[in-house]
């Protein structure tokens, strides 16, 4: 089967850099640092969570328009603590054509760059795929556990699968500098709880 190069790129990035994630996660002392478990906060910067640039601050020019997304941790610039103490803090960052974004999404973007929680709100799996949507030709986020799809151009609303609500967005400062968090997550991070 011929593979979509952007999809392949994201997956390879995710898988090939898993060891980096693992090694960083093995550092218990680092995870215990004050603030590492706290959700992203205003003025945090975003750093790559995996790959050869893991830990480096992400700038808009590091990203290619149209994706694939990268996975990122928030980092407190004052203490240099990376908030990787909880998997609920990790985000997907993708650069899109600003003209494709709806008004709400554009208001949270840095240029065309948008950020969302990596945790699927259905059962808490990580979102790992950037693929053509089931019902259109657009590339979208996909949680391969149960096939939920989210469109990052429309506040990550659900366009396929069992997920009950959109992904929480992480608003970014609308400038060209390092990607900086403008506000806390919009919406509850993590899977829904039954009743």
């Amino acid at each position, binding site marked *: 089967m011929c593979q979509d190069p952007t999809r392949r790129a994201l997956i390879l990035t995710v898988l*090939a850099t*898993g060891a980096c994630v693992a090694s960083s996660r093995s550092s218990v002392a680092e995870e215990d640092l004050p603030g590492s478990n706290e959700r992203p906060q205003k003025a945090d910067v975003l750093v790559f969570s995996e790959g050869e640039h893991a830990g480096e601050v992400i700038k808009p020019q590091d990203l290619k328009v149209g994706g694939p997304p990268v996975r990122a941790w928030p980092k407190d610039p004052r203490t240099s603590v990376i908030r990787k103490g909880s*998997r609920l803090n990790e985000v997907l960052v993708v650069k899109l054509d600003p003209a494709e974004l709806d008004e709400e999404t554009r208001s949270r973007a840095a240029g065309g760059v948008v950020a969302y929680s990596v945790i699927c709100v259905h*059962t*808490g*799996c990580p979102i790992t795929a950037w693929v053509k949507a089931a019902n259109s030709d657009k590339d979208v986020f996909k949680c391969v556990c149960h096939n939920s799809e989210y469109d990052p151009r429309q506040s990550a609303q659900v366009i396929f699968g069992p997920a009950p609500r959109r992904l929480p967005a992480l608003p970014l400062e609308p400038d060209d500098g390092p990607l900086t968090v403008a506000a806390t997550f919009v919406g509850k991070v*993590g899977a829904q709880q*039954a009743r």
Partner: protein
Amino acid sequence: MALKQWLLSGLLASTCLVSIAAAGPIENYSPVTAERLKNPEPGNWMHYRRTYDGQGYSPLDQINTSNVKNLTPVWTFSTGVIEGHEAPPIINNGVMFVATPSGQVIALNAKTGDEYWRYKRQLPEDLFQLHPTNRGVGLWQDKVYLATTDDHVVALEAKTGKVVWDTKVQDYKKGQYLTLMPLVVDGKVIVGGSGGELGVRGYVVAYDAETGKELWRTFTIPGTGEPGNETWSGDDWKTGGGSAWMTGNYDPDTKTVYWGTGNAAPWPGDTHSGDNLYTSSVLALDPDSGKMKTYFQYHQNDSWDWDEVDAPMLVDLQKDGRTIKSLIHPGRNAIFWVLERKPDSIKYVAGWPFVHTDVWKGIEPESGKPIVDPAHKPVIGKRVEFCPSLWGGKDWPSAAYSQKTGLVYVPANENFCGGFTGEKVPLVAGQLWLGTKPEDIGLTPRPGATHFGELQAWDPATGKKAWSHNFPKSQLFGSVTATAGDLIFVGGTNDRMFRAFHAKTGELLWEQKTNSGIMAMPIAYEVDGTQYIAVQSGWGVDAQRIQDGLVGKVPGLENNVPQGGVVWVFAVKK
């Protein structure tokens, strides 16, 4: 009214509402003894498959082929939970225990549907649930036992739902979780771990039913120095899969538990060379010590994700002029297995493909080893196609055996093939580790396929198919139950139907559309002289995955099956 006083009133009212909503506690509860588990009353369903032998057969015959057309819902109960509801309602003398995804247990009056109590597991918010489901609760004395997806075993007081003990099994953050119904044998609560896609080492573990103390743990993949470890290369055994995530069956006469094990991990066989004992096998275990008595491996060096976790049925089979103490297992690997269970060995008796497969060239007659066609065995760096698909000829949903007809009823999937490209992938604890990209998994209908789901009836003594019922637009992904009324009950299709078939002829006798799709196991029970049929409707997990994989490939496929669990209870209209 002062604000403070108003708030207090509100809180008190809430408390009262909770009390009013539940009819409990249960006043007259029948303690579950070893003898009752060994010989359950006909009207009860206290095991996963009603009896230790795993046959999924009820001796009740009040509902039968002549009156099933009058079967009608008598009560329903919404669980309030989404995703795949896979548990059979468990019945003990008029009390029904229902387990749901997200670790809930609901105790109901089996006659009226009134709620006694509900236990809600407070799952961690960072939990990664690949298979968000639960397959039921085990019973012993005055307690109810639940295995959870955050990897705990919990004992509840049967009358009230209060937690008696809560034992952590392993760490959910490392991909360990539990989805099965505990098997209870003589005061021991036995469970097996899930997580084969996450780089775990499978195991079966027993806890003291009174205290929750661990009694023994047997790994399904032998460690260094243990028999069978030589079938692994290097350290592959440490993360080799072999999950044990379905309930085992039990032979009280020989005190032997039979447990099915999962596939080797990751999927491509060339990432874990060797036969890979004891993956894709049935293990014979001593319930007192956990010691492995013997085993049979259904196929070696699994490369297709074909776990064999549905434990084989124990059947006294009349074949060739003698009674064979058999193990019967329609496998995910597409082979219908007939084995003989002996004290020190499990012998191959017969095997045949029950759906189309291009993977096997045959079976070695003495050893029972299937002979693989390497052209259809996935490897690293190359896309390989194979039939049936990775969901196999029959996945975890259970077959049933009727003691009246002598037939085995199989929820089969025919005409599905699939494939993937193997990739060498580093393991990250707690993350998917398949050996391929998950979105690269193919599901392809065979050219010219006229149907997919197929309810089959086989004579295990002769290997002849007695009848089959085909489903043109749907997979069949639900467990089967047989009754002495010569009825076969099954859901499993994406049209939300629950159906009854004539056990002897396969004639469709009755059907009822439900709220969602049915993956769970139907049961039969009796209260105050009335027979009921019960099942949970609630689509999700792999039934949903198959359906999503067929979008655009099967014209007219129903792809809009609503989720949400409901317990349905039926009786014959008088």
